[in-house]
């Protein structure tokens, strides 16, 4: 039961983009078409799950026992950057079709603050309070958060596709009108705020 609540909370109530403001760059950058938005979303799901698994393990077995948690930022970003590189190389060899679909998005994910943000967040505050810090919980949370990312970016891409056909005042063209649309979408997500 607590897992179900955790997943609903991560997908809808604490949506990573519209409530927590992480990963706004890809949200604005690759959301002009639903298909590319979906590709980016799946790539984030893939990398964030792996990254959180690895960084949580590092936190538990290296940083805390050696008492060097002040190195967290440097270590996590290095691990994430090399992980993304590794995923890219492995995908290229093992599954060229998947690489073709996700390839262009992978390098972008290194500087996606969503991945590092969630990796740091789960170490600061246990996902399910009564369990304490656990690698399994953190990884599940990362999966749920990425599903929330996919939901938000695909919805937003659908709205932006419609927006292409509309006449917009000159200064509002491009990003500003997209931001206003995102604001209205965020308002809709506020409706979930007392769900869990």
């Amino acid at each position: 039961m607590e897992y179900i609540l955790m997943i609903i909370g991560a997908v809808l109530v604490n949506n990573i983009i519209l409530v927590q403001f992480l990963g706004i760059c890809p949200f604005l950058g690759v959301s002009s078409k639903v298909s590319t938005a979906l590709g980016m979303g799946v790539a984030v799901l893939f990398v964030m799950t792996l990254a959180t698994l690895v960084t949580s393990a590092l936190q538990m077995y290296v940083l805390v026992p050696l008492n060097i948690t002040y190195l967290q930022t440097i270590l996590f970003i290095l691990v994430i950057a090399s992980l993304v590189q590794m995923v890219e190389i492995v995908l290229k060899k093992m599954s060229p079709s998947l690489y073709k679909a996700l390839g262009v998005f992978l390098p972008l994910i290194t500087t996606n603050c969503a991945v590092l943000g969630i990796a740091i967040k789960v170490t600061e505050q246990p996902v399910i309070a009564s369990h304490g810090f656990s690698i399994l919980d953190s990884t599940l949370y990362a999966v749920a958060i990425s599903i929330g990312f996919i939901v938000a970016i695909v919805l937003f891409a659908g709205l932006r596709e419609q927006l292409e056909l509309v006449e917009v005042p000159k200064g509002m063209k491009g990003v500003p009108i997209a931001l206003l649309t995102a604001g209205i979408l965020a308002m809709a997500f506020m409706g979930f705020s007392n769900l869990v």
Partner: protein
Amino acid sequence: MSKLKILTKGFFKENPSLILVLGTCPTLAVTTSVNNALGMGAATTFVLLMSNILISMLKNVIPDKIRIPCFIVIIATFVSIIDLVIQGFLPALSASLGVFIPLIVVNCIVLGRAEAFASKNPVWDSVLDGLGMGVGFTISLVLIAAVREVLGAGSFMGLTFIPSNYNMLLFVLAPGAFIVYGFIMAAVRQILNNVEAKRKAKQANA
């Protein structure tokens, strides 16, 4: 490009968050109050300045192929420094900015300036560039935060002047961030366009 231009281009003409649309996450997240915006702006400016200096000094030493990881390590070092300093001396600010201080590492402005400017230009120019971009980022944060704080919390830099019954809470919450950011971006772009058009018309007349 003159030295003054290197410094001032980041203020408005190439403002990182309003024109180049970089560093959007902190722009949306920390602009609930002017104090937070100033703190975030100062922290980012420090990291930009220091990483620009170091990268510009090391630009001939760092091999081209692994430059991005090198840049990230340098940036992460300065971010850790400022993170620990803020935690030590300004615990209230550290609590309200939260995870967004360590996230300066992945702020595209910092890496963007390292890649586009500091790795190609002399140290002194990189100092000016980092300072200009940092100040530009701070200006945009404060602009957005001022609107959000006045409308949403009825205060400015913590000084309340509108009774809480009349606050529009929406502007402190998530949707307000997107909406205010959108409107300010549109306004600044329109003003810059108008100024540019006027300058061109003047040149055509002369």
